[in-house]
């Protein structure tokens, strides 16, 4: 069979920019909320099937940076090459940038009101619970070996104690455990 599949219409820069701009402007709650929203919207437009999206998502996780941004940039490039990549980058980045500056200006004016203070205090009180749940889920979903358990506990202690050296400590931990994994596999 050598019939060519019907040419898929490539969306242009502005439609991709608008697509991600819209998602970024209305989705509150960070990467783990945004990624499923992006996936469903891409599938609905027929730009990217679900299984391909999860391949991209896995690759996006291997790069540092905000998950939602990385996923969007990879998806943008898959859909429309470099212009798509740039469109996704700007679309994700601009709405929060504008919103946060507006909010900061607004809070400069009303930030001392007790009700506003109370709201922010309440909204922050969620953070320890959310981060603990994130850690819990990462721990629950991992396939554990004794080596990984020991390395992970050591890593948690070392990074927590490292203070402003946390970033170099993180890379040291990754290097050591990559080496240990190789030895373990042999």
């Amino acid at each position, binding site marked *: 069979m050598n019939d060519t599949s019907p040419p898929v219409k490539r969306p242009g820069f502005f439609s991709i920019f608008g697509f991600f701009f819209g998602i970024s*402007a209305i989705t509150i709650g*960070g990467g783990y909320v945004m990624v499923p929203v992006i996936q469903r919207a891409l599938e609905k437009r027929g730009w990217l099937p679900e299984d391909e999206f999860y391949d991209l998502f896995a690759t996006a996780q*291997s*790069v*540092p940076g905000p998950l939602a941004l990385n996923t969007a940039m990879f998806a943008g490039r898959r859909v429309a090459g470099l212009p798509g990549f740039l469109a996704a980058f700007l679309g994700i980045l601009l709405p*929060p940038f504008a919103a946060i500056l507006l909010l900061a200006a607004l809070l400069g004016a009303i930030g001392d009101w007790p009700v506003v203070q109370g709201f922010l205090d309440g909204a922050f009180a969620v953070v320890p619970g959310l981060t603990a749940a994130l850690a819990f889920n990462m721990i629950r979903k991992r396939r554990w070996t004794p080596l990984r358990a020991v390395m992970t506990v050591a890593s948690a202690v070392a*990074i927590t104690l490292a203070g402003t050296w946390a970033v170099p400590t993180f890379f040291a931990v990754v290097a050591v455990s990559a080496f240990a994994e190789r030895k373990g596999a042999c």
Partner: protein
Amino acid sequence: MLRLALVFLKIGVAAYGGGWTIVGIIRTEIVGRAWMSAEEFVKLVAMAQITPGPVALNAATLVGYRLHGLLGAAVSTLAVVAAPVALSLLIGGFFAKATKSGARLTEALKTGTIGLIAMTVWAFAPAAVSSGLNVAIALTAFAVSAFTRINPLWIILGSGVIGAATRAFLG
């Protein structure tokens, strides 16, 4: 200003594991350098999570804005995404094919990422036990996001309203 850019560049390079890990790293770098007090940072995180967009980007923008105004906001935002954008451009599809050694690297990154998130939990845990109400909110948030698929946004907004009501009626 240059130091602000360098610090956020460094944060961007190690920004594995999604938003909250990055917030933890930002906290360590900013509060650890005494550029901002722990209380100020807490307010900033509360703002970052009720603003649309990735929470880590919002936090980076806010820190820059607080320290150096509009220009600082632009500098910190661009610096924190510089490494991810460069790496995404370089890696692309070729990385997907290199998944053989990738599996080992993925496991090593998981080990480090759990370490980073542990640091974040440790940093924010004292806030959870500062009052009875905060203990209740933190436990609810944990239970809901660990065991249900409810959007955490509802918990965040709900707790905000509870916090505002408590302040308004009890002083």
